């Protein structure tokens, strides 16, 4: 399943990227090489002879829409500067100006660092007046975007993983103490009767059950940072019971399903930060929904493990049962 989803994501992104780019080329979305007429007036007349002239750019929205074939709503004036050098005149819009599409894309593609839209200006006199501005040609936006996304996400993945080291080390250290002191064993004894039906292939008194309980408790209390190392520890314990180290056992899938359903009595910190006080109204709704999704997750993991297809793929240790 994951094989197909994974390959599907990659192949589909290439296909969609190509369709978008070919569509852009066919309809000439960015009007490559064509000049657009704007009115450019210097802010004060005294700067007319300098190399750098602060200007106000007037854009006629109707002309903009007709030229690009869009229904955008450009502001009618923008601040900017005209830079003059041997090669001619360059119009630079103010940084981070709220330009409409397709200018926003042109800006993103041609001026990554400064985030100011730049175009060459023709037929303009420093005393002010109409001028034709043309931008650098933009092609294959999506192709570039998917390549960039692949690279930056690969980097992000490493950052995320390495960012976990500290918390992982802290919890795995604490858990080592807990195990040696017999705490995990006590947790197992108390909770065994409740969780046993969900994890039938864990032998009685095995520490895996204790880790699972700790993981679920941390989840419930919204302690995401603590839940992850506990869940990983639980997985490691389950792996010691697994005959085939590359294939998930029924218990592993059950634990994973319970985690993805995320039983939460306390909402995650991030959501609290986003929603502010509004979160108080939502706690009840979240508890209902998360409870229902937990039931579905447990039922799905249980029932799917009984189907012919997934029973056949189960590691040897769990087939009886």
């Amino acid at each position, binding site marked *: 399943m994951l094989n197909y989803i994974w390959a599907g994501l990659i192949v589909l992104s290439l296909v969609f990227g190509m369709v978008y780019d070919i569509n852009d080329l066919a309809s000439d979305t960015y009007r490559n090489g064509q000049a657009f007429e704007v009115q450019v007036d210097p802010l004060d007349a005294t700067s007319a002879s300098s190399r750098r002239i602060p200007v106000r750019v007037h854009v006629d929205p109707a002309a903009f829409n007709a030229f690009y074939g869009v229904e955008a709503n450009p502001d009618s004036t923008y601040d900017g500067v005209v830079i003059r050098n041997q090669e001619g005149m360059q119009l630079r819009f103010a940084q981070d100006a709220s330009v409409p599409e397709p200018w926003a894309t042109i800006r993103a593609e041609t001026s990554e660092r400064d985030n100011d839209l730049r175009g060459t200006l023709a037929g303009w006199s420093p005393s002010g007046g109409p001028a034709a501005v043309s931008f650098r040609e933009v092609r294959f936006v999506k192709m570039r975007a998917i390549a960039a996304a692949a690279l930056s996400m690969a980097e992000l993945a*490493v950052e995320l993983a390495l960012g976990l080291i500290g918390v992982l080390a802290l919890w795995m250290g604490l858990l080592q103490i807990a195990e040696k002191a017999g*705490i995990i064993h006590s947790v197992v004894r108390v909770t065994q009767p409740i969780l046993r039906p969900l994890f039938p292939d864990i032998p009685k008194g095995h520490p895996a059950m204790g880790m699972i309980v700790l993981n679920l408790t941390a989840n419930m209390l919204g302690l995401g940072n603590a839940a992850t190392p506990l869940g990983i520890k639980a*997985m490691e314990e389950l792996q010691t019971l697994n005959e085939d180290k590359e294939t998930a056992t029924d218990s*592993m*899938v059950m634990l994973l399903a319970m985690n993805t359903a995320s039983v939460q009595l306390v909402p995650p910190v991030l959501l609290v930060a986003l*929603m502010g006080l509004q979160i108080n109204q939502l706690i009840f709704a979240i508890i*209902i929904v998360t409870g229902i999704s937990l039931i579905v*997750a447990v039922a799905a993991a249980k029932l799917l493990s009984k189907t012919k297809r997934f029973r056949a793929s189960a590691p040897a240790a769990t087939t009886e049962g």
Partner: protein
Amino acid sequence: MDTIRSIIEIASVFVLPLLIVGFPLYGLIKKVPVYEEFVEGAKGGFKVAVTIIPYLVAILFAIGMFRASGAMDFMVDGLRPILGWFGIPPEVLPMMIMRPLTGSGSAAIVLDMINQFGEDSILVKMVATMFGSTETTFYVIAVYFGAVNIKKTRHAVPAGLLADIVAMITAVFVVRWLFG
């Protein structure tokens, strides 16, 4: 309702310090060499983090490409009419698709919708409930299975996604029932 909520809130504040202090303290009473055992266990943290890197890279770069290609927008447009039949507002669709794939991406959607519709709007309540009641399924799979080098995930993906879909749809109706 309020007392239960405050009990939970207080518990969530105290659990962490209690565990962090309690484990070594109890270990000391049981005559465990706590410092040595802590260091011994903590060594595993680095190994686990490094082990999950390839799994995370695999999942995240594929999702990143998919988002950047515009395929996500296309899916949203395609599924819009189908949602209409079930009485699910199309505005929440990007959330339903993004939630299992990326945590930061779906948080961005919540933020974007707060800016667009205001915190009080029922649509924001729906997406916030979706965000709060589900997990980033593919990330959880990559991390948990990656940590123990499980490559064949069997029914984990269908079970996780089914729970997600049910949670999202339930969120729409529960919020409408409570606030609509």
